[in-house]
């Protein structure tokens, strides 16, 4: 049979502004070439024109579903450059908010996976439950999605009165719901059939392609920046790094489900042990770090999020480089799509939790 080249996107339902150029032979994909860049905004260039503090709202825009995760590494990098250290309470609040964001992001992912697989309950439930976490985050950070809450030297606000009880109630609710998700989605024969054995990324290939986050851990590599190079107070909490060896879409889905449970564990420990004290240190609002370079990385919802900042001693970074998880997972598209059925394309696509804005920056 003769080959046919299809352009999937950039207005593909659910894919965001991103295009895949796919060659098919009958129903089998023979080649898939990702074509990102439709939402490239030159954020790295723009950051060179902004003072360190002013870049924060800009840098969290690429990943609105996980905006704390996307600026966490930036804030740590600037702190290291400028020689600031956030007080312990601030570090706890940052961990709390980053984990809430991870839960939100994974629930969002699960909901959209429902759409991709034609399971509308799976879309409604996590999306509705995500509101509980959003409300909680809004109480602390004053916005639903884009918070600009993490700043060098701490966070912008303290936790509101009564937050602990609210948060504990929310985690109990979520835990109950996760059991229901497990019964209705993860043990659902249709979900299992559509995802198990589909889009297999083996352990060695995952390492060779340098993928990150749940995509990496779904291939049995339990790397996680929160453990490998613990930042802030992550080393004080007990949590596991879930990894599943099969490397298929089902494994990647399970990783995210388990990660929500681990995030809940961290949130509970942090709520119990958060110390009293200041939530931010005082420093001049215009930072002028000395000459130097810093590379810092954190584990965002989609994987290792890293910033490389070069300072030449000015009020703005001389160069700011973002290494984002979606960009690093792009290579997996080419690899996973090849040889799979066209009907499995959406399943594989969203199993990587690809976020076009995050890749394009």
């Amino acid at each position, binding site marked *: 049979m003769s080959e046919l080249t299809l352009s999937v996107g950039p207005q593909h339902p659910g894919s965001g502004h991103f295009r895949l150029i796919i060659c098919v032979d009958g129903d089998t994909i023979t080649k898939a070439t990702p074509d990102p*860049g439709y939402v490239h905004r030159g954020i790295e260039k723009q950051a060179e024109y902004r003072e360190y503090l002013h870049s924060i709202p800009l840098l969290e825009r690429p990943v609105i579903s996980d905006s704390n995760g996307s600026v966490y590494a930036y804030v740590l990098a600037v702190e290291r450059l400028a020689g600031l250290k956030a007080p312990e309470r601030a570090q706890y609040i940052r961990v709390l908010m980053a984990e809430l964001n991870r839960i939100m992001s994974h629930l969002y992912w699960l909901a959209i996976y429902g759409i991709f697989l034609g399971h509308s309950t799976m879309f409604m439930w996590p999306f509705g439950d995500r509101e509980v976490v959003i409300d909680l985050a809004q109480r602390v950070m004053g916005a639903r999605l884009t918070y600009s809450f993490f700043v060098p030297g701490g966070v912008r606000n303290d936790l509101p009165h009564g937050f602990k009880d609210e948060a504990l109630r929310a985690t109990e609710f979520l835990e109950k719901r996760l059991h229901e998700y497990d019964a209705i989605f993860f043990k659902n024969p249709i979900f299992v059939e559509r995802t198990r054995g589909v889009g297999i990324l083996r352990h060695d290939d995952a*390492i*060779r392609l340098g993928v990150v986050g749940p995509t990496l851990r779904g291939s049995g590599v339990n790397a996680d920046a929160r453990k490998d190079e613990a930042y802030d107070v992550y080393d004080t909490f007990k949590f596991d790094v879930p990894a599943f060896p099969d490397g298929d879409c089902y494994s990647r889905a399970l990783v995210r489900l388990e990660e929500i449970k681990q995030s809940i564990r961290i949130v509970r420990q942090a709520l119990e042990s958060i110390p009293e004290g200041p939530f931010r240190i005082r420093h001049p609002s215009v930072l002028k770090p000395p000459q130097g370079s810093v590379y810092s990385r954190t584990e965002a919802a989609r994987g290792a999020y890293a910033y490389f900042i070069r300072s030449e001693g000015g009020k703005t970074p001389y160069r700011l*480089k973002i290494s984002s998880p979606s*960009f*690093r997972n792009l*290579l997996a598209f080419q690899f996973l799509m090849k040889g799979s059925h066209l009907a499995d394309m959406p399943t594989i696509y969203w199993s990587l939790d690809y976020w076009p804005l995050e890749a*394009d920056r």
Partner: protein
Amino acid sequence: MYELSPVIEDEEIARRVAEQFPEIRIEISALNRINLEAPHYCLPQLAAYLRDIEGFDHVASVTGIDYPDRNLVKVTYHLGAYAKLTIRRLVLSVSVDLPRQDAMTPSLVSIWPSAEYHERETHEMVGVMFEGHPNSNLLLLPEDWIDLPPLRKDFKLRGR
């Protein structure tokens, strides 16, 4: 988990690299950060050594920095390790200085396939040629882009 303390292990790695490649400048800039400055011609051998002997199995990021005053472009690879547990905590960087007008360096895609898109991005954004790269078409920029590479310092944002 660790056989040696992280600090001693970092020094051991630095010592071994210095022994193998005397022309390379090595600096341990912070805990878990080793920076190497290498001439570009020894990059392929260095990369193969770092992958095969030291266990750095993937590229996490490639950055190009333009220095018009010094007439050079600095390309930095940040490497990480997944398989070798004791160095997962490490980020090792390899930098090369290239002349600004003729910024050319060997591509490391054949050693680290994970470098492919990072190098492609550095090519279009900073104007660095990676010799032997499988595909240096534009990745993020519009396909009809004819201006300077935008992350060069002589490319100015309008209105700023």
